[in-house]
C-alpha cells in the first residue's frame, strides 16, 4: 500500500511541478501547436515530393502517422528527463533523495503521468491527421490503437527513465533530452522506413521502443488486429522493460556516486 501511495504521489507531484514554470494555458497551447507544426512540416516536405512526381500519395499518411506517434517522445523523454533537471534547479533533489521512500515506485511513478499526457498528445495529433491531412482511420480497431499508443508511451517513458538515470550525474540533463528527442526522427521510421537508413546503422533503430510502436500503429490504422501485431508489441515491451531496469540501475548507482562525492546538485 505504501509503495502504491509513493507511486501515485510521485506521479501527481511530477505533473503538478511542471506548472511552477509553465502556465496551464501555455501547456495547452503547446499541446495543440507542437504536434500540428511538426506533422505539417514533414507532411509538406512529403507533398513537395508528390507534386513533383517523386512519391505516391501514400507518403502523406505514412508521415502523418509517424509524426503523430512521435509527439509522445516530448512527454516521455523530454518531460521525464526534465524532472531530474528541475529538481536540480529548484534545489529539491537532496530532499527527494533524503526521503526513506522506496526508489522504484518513486522512480517509475514520476514518469507515469507523462505516459497519459503523451497519449493525449498522440490523440490530438491523430485528429490533425484525419481532418487536415485526410488520413483514413476507417479500418482501424480503436481499442487496439489505444493499446498500442499506451504501450508505446509506457515503454518510451522507460527509455526516458534510462536516459534520465544516465544523465542524473550530469550538469544539465536537458542536453540529453533534446538530443534524444531529435535523434528519434532519424532512427524510428518516423518519416521513412528504417530500411532506408544506411545498413550499418539500422540496428540502432531497434533499441528505441518507438520504432516498434510506430510500426504497430501504422499496421493497426491500416486494419491489423492486436493478434497480428502481438510480436511487435512483445519486442517493444522487452526493450522497454530492459530500459526501465537499466535506468533504475543507473539512477541508483549515480545516486550513490553523487552522495559519495557530494555532487548531488551538480548544476
Amino acid at each position, binding site marked *: 500500500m505504501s509503495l502504491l501511495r509513493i507511486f501515485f504521489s510521485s506521479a501527481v507531484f511530477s505533473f503538478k511541478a511542471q506548472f511552477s*514554470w509553465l502556465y496551464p494555458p501555455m501547456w495547452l497551447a503547446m499541446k495543440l501547436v507542437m504536434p500540428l507544426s511538426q506533422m505539417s*512540416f514533414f507532411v509538406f516536405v512529403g507533398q513537395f*515530393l508528390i507534386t513533383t512526381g517523386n*512519391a505516391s500519395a501514400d507518403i502523406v499518411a505514412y508521415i502523418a502517422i509517424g509524426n503523430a506517434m512521435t509527439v509522445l517522445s516530448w512527454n516521455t523523454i523530454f518531460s521525464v528527463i526534465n524532472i531530474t533537471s528541475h529538481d536540480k534547479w529548484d534545489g529539491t533533489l537532496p530532499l527527494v533523495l533524503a526521503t526513506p521512500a522506496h526508489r522504484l515506485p518513486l522512480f517509475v511513478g514520476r514518469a507515469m503521468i507523462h505516459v497519459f499526457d503523451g497519449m493525449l498528445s498522440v490523440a490530438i495529433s491523430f485528429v490533425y491527421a484525419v481532418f487536415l491531412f485526410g488520413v483514413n482511420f476507417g479500418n482501424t480497431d480503436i481499442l487496439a490503437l489505444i493499446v498500442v499508443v499506451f504501450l508505446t508511451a509506457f515503454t518510451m517513458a522507460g527509455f526516458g527513465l534510462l536516459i534520465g538515470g544516465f544523465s542524473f550525474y550530469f550538469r544539465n540533463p536537458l542536453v540529453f533530452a533534446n*538530443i534524444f528527442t*531529435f535523434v528519434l526522427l532519424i532512427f524510428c521510421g518516423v518519416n521513412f522506413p528504417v530500411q532506408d*537508413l544506411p545498413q550499418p546503422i539500422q540496428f540502432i533503430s531497434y533499441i528505441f521502443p518507438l520504432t516498434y510502436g510506430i510500426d504497430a500503429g501504422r499496421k493497426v490504422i491500416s486494419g491489423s488486429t492486436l493478434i497480428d501485431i502481438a510480436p511487435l508489441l512483445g519486442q517493444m515491451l522487452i526493450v522497454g522493460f530492459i530500459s526501465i531496469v537499466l535506468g533504475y540501475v543507473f539512477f541508483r548507482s549515480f545516486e550513490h556516486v553523487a552522495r559519495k562525492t557530494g555532487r548531488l546538485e551538480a548544476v
Partner: protein
Amino acid sequence: MPQTLRVIYSAFRMAMLHWIADPQWVIPNVIAPFVFTFVALTLFKEATGPFGLYAVLGGGMMGMWGNTLYSSGFAIEFEKWQGTLEEVVATPSNLLHVIAGKSISNALFGLTNMAAILLIASLVFRVPLDVANPILFALSIVLTLISVSALGLIFASAFVLTRSAQVFTNGLEFPIYVISGSMFPIGLLPFWVHPASYILGPTWGIEAIRIAAGQENVSLTFWLNVGVMLLITLAYVALAAFLFKKVETKSRRDGTLGQA
C-alpha cells in the same frame, strides 16, 4: 568607446562566455539542423530535381532560426534563473542594446550553423553544392541572418514578460520552419497561411539564397526578395525597439519581473 557600443560589446562578450560555458548550443547549432537535413535528404534521395538544394539550404536556414530562438529565449530565461534579470533591466543602459549585443553573438554562431550544414551535406551526404553566384549567395545568407536575428529581438521582448520563454523556444521552432517554407515552396501551404509567410523575413531570405545558389546571373526576383526582406527587417527592428521600451516601462512599474 561610446557608451552604446560599450554596452553592446559587454553583452556580446557575456553571451559568448555563456555559450562556451553551457554546451546546450550544440542542440540548435549542430544536432537539430543535422537531423532535419538528414531526414530531408533521406526522403529526397531517390528524387530528381532541386531537392538537395532545398534540403541543405533549408536545413541551414532552420539552424539559424533555431539558434536565434534558443539564444533570445534562453538569454532571458538564463538571466531569470541566475537572478540577474532585475539588475540588467535596472541598469541605466538601454535593454535593447543589451539584447542587441547578445543577438550579435547569436548571429556569429548562426553563421557557423549554415557552414556546418553545408559541410555535413557535402562530406557526409555527398550532395553537390555548386553555388552559381558565391558573392550574392554569401550576401543573401548574411542578410537573412540579420533578418532572423531581428525577428528574434521581437520574441525576446515578449520573453521578458513570461516565465514560459523556454516553452516558447521549443514551440516556435517548427511553426516558423513551416510558414517560411524552409524546405518546400510556400505555394504548397494553404492560401490562408500565405499572409503569415509573407511577413516573415526568412521566407524571402531563403528564396534569395536559393536563387543565388542556382543562378549565376541572378534575375530581378533575387533583388525583389532581398529588398522586401530588408524592409521587413527594418520593420522588425522598429517594432522590437518599441516593444522593448514598453516591456521595460511595464517591468519597472509593476515590479514583477523576477516572478514573471
